């Protein structure tokens, strides 16, 4: 089932490329690689949905800020109302320096520095635009997987039946035995003692470019966090402050959590796209950003992983809420004359007033994390 739409999508690509060989000077294949920088926020292709940014099917010829169901910045909507339509030229300008072209755009992306990258990514995006000569055919092909969803299910049922199904030995005899490759595909969790780590290695120096390319748009070049995206580094010795900053270096108890979480959930919007070596390198780089190692040649691997300890490990304690005085056993709550005189108001929400009121959404208070 999974493979089916994928191969169909490839077919679309092939078809489009074939039908219009000289569409752009850019190279769509190379553009597909460049698009990894966008994939954290944008989807394109069959069934693409809005993510952090709008889906980019048919972006050529699209009026800026007009994809249905996506909430643009005012700046982008206004640019569209002002007549901005995306074509090779306008897109090139935007992708080179988004904020220069549209002041106030909420695309948190610095821009593509190389003209080649821009030309290539546009060639790639163009294969998903109706404007393309081959569009009608491509679009139909593109729809196939959706239209034949049921057929897809049937295709999928077949191999399941073929598998030497070993029934469960339990009381109900329901379910079937899980295959080793199935368990390997899903069981990627890593424990503090290193159980679950895959083979692999990566150095701080190798991690840096991977981080800059895949993570920095949201987390900042040094893990300082862009806008409201999570901060990943710093905050040492702030846990007892009024406003503690909880990061990998200042708060997290175990390094295994970094590896496990990045491998399962990051980059946001493009999970499971990194190789195990990439994740080792990124974890090493995050150690470096948090001053846990200072040598750029430091290599993290399956072998030395469990020997690393994070500074705050000892400061986690079991749940002892039951020992708090207000939970002492047998308290009979007071029913009358519980306070000496008339009660005074000591704090009011209206003074802070951060209750949402449509627009105007400034953060002035604590968070939910």
């Amino acid at each position, binding site marked *: 089932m999974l493979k089916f739409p994928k191969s169909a999508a490839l077919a679309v690509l092939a078809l489009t490329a074939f039908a219009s060989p000289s569409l752009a000077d850019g190279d769509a294949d190379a553009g597909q690689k460049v698009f990894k920088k966008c994939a954290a926020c944008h989807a394109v292709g069959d069934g693409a949905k809005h993510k952090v940014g709008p889906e980019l099917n048919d972006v050529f010829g699209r009026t800026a800020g007009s994809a249905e169901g996506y909430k643009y910045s005012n700046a982008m909507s206004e640019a569209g109302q002002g007549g901005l339509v995306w074509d090779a030229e306008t897109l090139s300008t935007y992708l080179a320096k988004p904020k220069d072209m549209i002041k106030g755009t909420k695309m948190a992306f610095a821009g593509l520095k190389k003209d080649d990258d821009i030309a290539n990514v546009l060639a790639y995006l163009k294969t998903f635009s109706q404007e393309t000569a081959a569009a009608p055919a491509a679009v139909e092909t593109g729809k196939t997987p959706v239209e034949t969803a049921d057929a897809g299910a049937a295709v999928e049922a077949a191999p399941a039946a073929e598998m030497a199904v070993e029934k469960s030995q339990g009381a109900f005899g*329901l379910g079937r035995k899980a295959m080793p490759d199935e368990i390997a595909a899903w069981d990627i969790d890593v424990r503090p003692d290193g159980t679950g780590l895959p083979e692999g290695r990566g150095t701080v120096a190798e991690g840096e470019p991977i981080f800059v390319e895949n993570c920095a748009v949201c987390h900042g070049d040094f893990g300082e966090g862009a806008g409201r995206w999570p901060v990943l580094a710093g905050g040492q010795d702030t846990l007892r402050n009024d406003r503690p900053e909880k990061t990998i270096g200042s708060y997290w108890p175990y390094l295994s959590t970094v590896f496990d979480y990045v491998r*399962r959930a990051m980059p946001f919007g493009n999970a499971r796209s990194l190789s195990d070596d990439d994740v080792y390198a990124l974890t090493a780089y995050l150690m470096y950003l948090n001053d846990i190692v200072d040598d750029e040649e430091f290599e993290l691997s399956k072998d030395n992983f469990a020997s690393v300890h994070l500074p705050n490990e000892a400061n986690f304690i079991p749940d002892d*809420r039951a020992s708090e005085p207000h939970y002492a056993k047998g308290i009979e709550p007071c029913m009358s004359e519980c306070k000496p005189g008339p009660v005074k108001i000591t704090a009011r929400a209206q003074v802070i007033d951060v209750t949402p009121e449509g627009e105007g959404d400034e953060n002035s*208070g604590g968070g939910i994390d």
Partner: protein
Amino acid sequence: MVDITDPKRTKQAASRRDFLKAGLLGGAAVAASAGVARAAGDPLITEIQDWNRYLGEGVDVAPYGKPSEFEANVVRRNVPWLTADPVSSINFTPLHELDGIITPNGLCFERHHGGTAIINPADHRLMINGLVDTPLVFTMEDLKRFPRENRVYFLECAANGGMEWRGSQLNGCQFTHGMIHCVVYTGVPLRYLLEEAGVKTNGKWLLAEGADASAMTRSIPMEKALDDCLVAFKMNGEALRPEQGYPLRLCVPGWEGNMWVKWLRRLEVGDEPWAQREETSKYTDLLANGKARRHTWVMDVKSVITSPSPQAPVTHGKGPLVITGLAWSGNGTIKRVDVTLDGGRTWQTARLDGPSLPKALHRFYLDINWDGSELLLQSRAIDDQGLVQPTKNELRAARGENSIYHNNGIQTWHVNNDGVVENVEVS
């Protein structure tokens, strides 16, 4: 004030908002609109209304029915500044508009970490692996052949009230307490599934994992897993809503909502906890001394008055007033709820009404005759373990202000002479 942003908002809602905005009208003026004797009869009675003459729509106009158009303002709302992006964010149940103990499915608050996963049940699989005799894979069809149970449970996010640690901040119980809902779940006891795979004797922990883009994971002690956890596929009789984990979610009754993994796809048995991101970086409670509690699973005894409250002011003036609210405890049932009108000097016991089920919401009422004077309303719940809901200051004294999670302190609403209500704290 909370904006009623829906353009189709009702006249009632509009006038209530104007009323809130003005905040000047005397109680008497308001009372007038509520039905003072007129020279001529009420035209709503003396004149024939359209709905009394012309036919309404037939059946099947809405194959899946929706609430009345006059209820358009009863919706979940979010607080945009809280999170970086709506894909990893939260919205809140409109508690102030609801009654009874069951939350309608479409109003159950949402919190996801990688957006709502859309999964065709035919494509969904649940795997059990790790320290078991036989690792297993179930389809949804398989799961529906196990014996089922129906249970009413509340689900509360551990961060409910998290914005209020440093002082009253948000004007509305939707925002201060709305990360909670309570529905009846239909599902298979987790025990049956684990027994089917055969848990090895050293299997002391369970890792639950979701199929969404965050691949959400939490460690759960085996004792709890074998006790009352459910693998649910229905809520309030119909399939789970997509945003609640369709087609399958875990129920971990009485424990923090983050553990109720949605889009449940895998259960791994192990001999130690996994220390996943949601049980280290998040869902640990930082104390004033720099230490942090972990594995704070149980949701403490708690209550809140849902009406009157900032979004549900008193619009009818003096006279009979229904004070109502919700109480709950992750330990079991609620034994008693007390309500004070004077900020905690004197308390009276409220009336619990409706079913009293363990780890479910309880509804309470206090029916008073309001004389139009200022009120400082609070409610205080006591559960069947005898635990009493603490004050916010007691919690701060024990923990500081940086815990984020598990804020079950007593909430105060100030009602002024005009019936306008504000979130406050008191001495």
